[in-house]
């Protein structure tokens, strides 16, 4: 039985760039250089490792985003994914996690899947709820926040390192998995991989293709509203001293003055 893996990836503004909000208080995706979210590279890596351990797997990378988001898909294809699906529609602008997860779920169903793999969160919105939302919407088991994952005999297993405990999890396929940055370093695309990626198919879908109404998504369809976004005032410059032998004692004095000691 073939194993169809769909990896959800996001094209995000680079964290080292000047990230900001646009006039409509959505994330500015035009004026800041974007890239494949670092946390999604781990998802692509685990998908490839699962696929490489067998001979009947196919890895599809899926994104919802503007035209430039194809860069994220090409990166994943150059790492070794087989094909890509790009959901792009002007009406998607400003979607919240509810809208985005709706579109992803419909696109996953249309593509066909046995295993969905996502990163633990995006590096821009960083809500970290899309994998759980996908499991709920698709009606399949949620096996999330894994630092180790394996698939065999139609079952996905993994280790989840929580705050209070480490859990071993197990669920039958189909299922939705998310992996953390502890799951294993993502590979760099090889030159051959980059060349091959140029020829790999990228299917483009819009809302009509997914039977989604414009009112269900985008800024208007969002179930949340950002009323204000303000740049955090820069922290006022504090005191910086050079240790001349009593730096520790002077610091203790400062902390005592602030009532920490």
């Amino acid at each position, binding site marked *: 039985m073939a194993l169809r893996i769909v990896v959800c990836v996001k094209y995000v503004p680079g964290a080292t760039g000047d990230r900001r909000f646009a006039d409509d208080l959505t994330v500015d995706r035009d004026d800041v250089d974007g890239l494949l979210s670092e946390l999604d590279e781990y998802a692509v890596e685990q998908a490839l490792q699962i696929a490489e351990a067998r001979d009947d797997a196919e890895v599809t990378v899926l994104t919802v985003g503007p035209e430039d988001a194809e860069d994220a898909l090409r990166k994943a294809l150059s790492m070794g994914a087989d094909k890509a699906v790009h959901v792009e529609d002007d009406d998607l602008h400003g979607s919240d996690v509810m809208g985005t997860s709706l579109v992803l779920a419909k696109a996953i169903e249309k593509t066909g899947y046995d295993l969905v793999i996502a990163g633990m969160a995006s590096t821009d919105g960083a809500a970290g709820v899309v994998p759980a939302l996908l499991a709920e919407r698709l009606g399949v088991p949620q096996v999330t926040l894994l630092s180790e994952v394996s698939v065999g005999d139609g079952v996905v297993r993994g280790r989840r390192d929580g705050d209070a405990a480490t859990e071993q999890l197990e669920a039958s396929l189909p299922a939705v998995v998310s992996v953390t940055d502890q799951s294993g370093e993502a590979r760099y695309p090889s030159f051959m991989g980059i060349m091959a990626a140029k020829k790999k198919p990228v299917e483009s879908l819009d809302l009509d293709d997914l039977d989604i109404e414009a009112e269900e998504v985008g800024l208007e369809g*969002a179930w949340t509203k950002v009323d204000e976004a303000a740049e955090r005032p820069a922290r006022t410059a504090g005191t910086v*001293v050079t240790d001349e032998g009593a730096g*520790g004692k002077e610091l203790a004095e400062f902390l005592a003055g602030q009532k920490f000691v």
Partner: protein
Amino acid sequence: MAEVLVYVDHVDGAVRKPTLELLTLARRIGEPVAVALGAGAADTAAELAEHGATRVLTADAPEFADYLVVPKVDALQAAYEAVQPAAVLVPPPAEGKEIAARLAVRIKSGIITDAVDLEAGEEGPVATQSAFAASYTTKSRITQGTPVITVKPNSAAVEAAPAAGAVEALSVSFSPGATGTKVTARTPRESSGRPELTEAAIVVSAGRGVNGDFAVVEALADSLGAAVGASRAAVDAGWYPHAHQVGQTGKSVSPQLYIASGISGAIQHRAGMQTSKTIVAINKDAEAPIFDLVDYGVVGDLFEVVPQLTEEINTRKG
């Protein structure tokens, strides 16, 4: 006054601090009704009542421990239907966000995650969030359904506000998907004896500069009753467990005092700590970006400065 559902994070009946902070926020928008699930659920009632819970709905069943997330979503949904609250508030950790998100889809409501403050507003609760590595602050609200909001640790003070806290049994019928993901083994995390990183009032962190030796920062942490954090570089080098990583891909902390030793302050690290109230850094490199954030910085060798600081604190404590 409208009721507000508060999901309780507890370990065998011991309520974790962020839930008590959540009760403080809940009282700003209504009367808190707590929902406690699993082993020891009823034992949470006294502490929840002390902090403002008017009712404590409890349910226990093997499913809560044996299967991931969904049984808890089923129970929270049952509580939602029974109470018809004005809002649903959920504390960290990560599992809380997953439970909240799935509930929100089911009840067709918007969700706001990782709020750092919450106040009543004319059109429902207004949540403050930090964005882009805490370089922006946003205010948002939910425009569809019953607001479902998850809150970060240290978002409010724990306040005593005695209320009835009457325990009521919550009747839960599990959905077909409840047993989808089996927990086949669980190993409780070993306690370091120090405060939980995300909940601590003081965090002492170390990075590349400690060169593998966390003993000096652990000693400082213990003199202050602080939690120990680590930069990604220190964790990647294998010097300290990932559970202590502060930053974009680790924990986000917002303590009263954050002491960074031997941490340069890359954007990935700042994302996890720059909302701390007071920031102190010790670093050899006067040009390190961490010094842009500090209230007090020492340019110097941390192996000189930190032990001297620890000794001075211990002396002052007598």
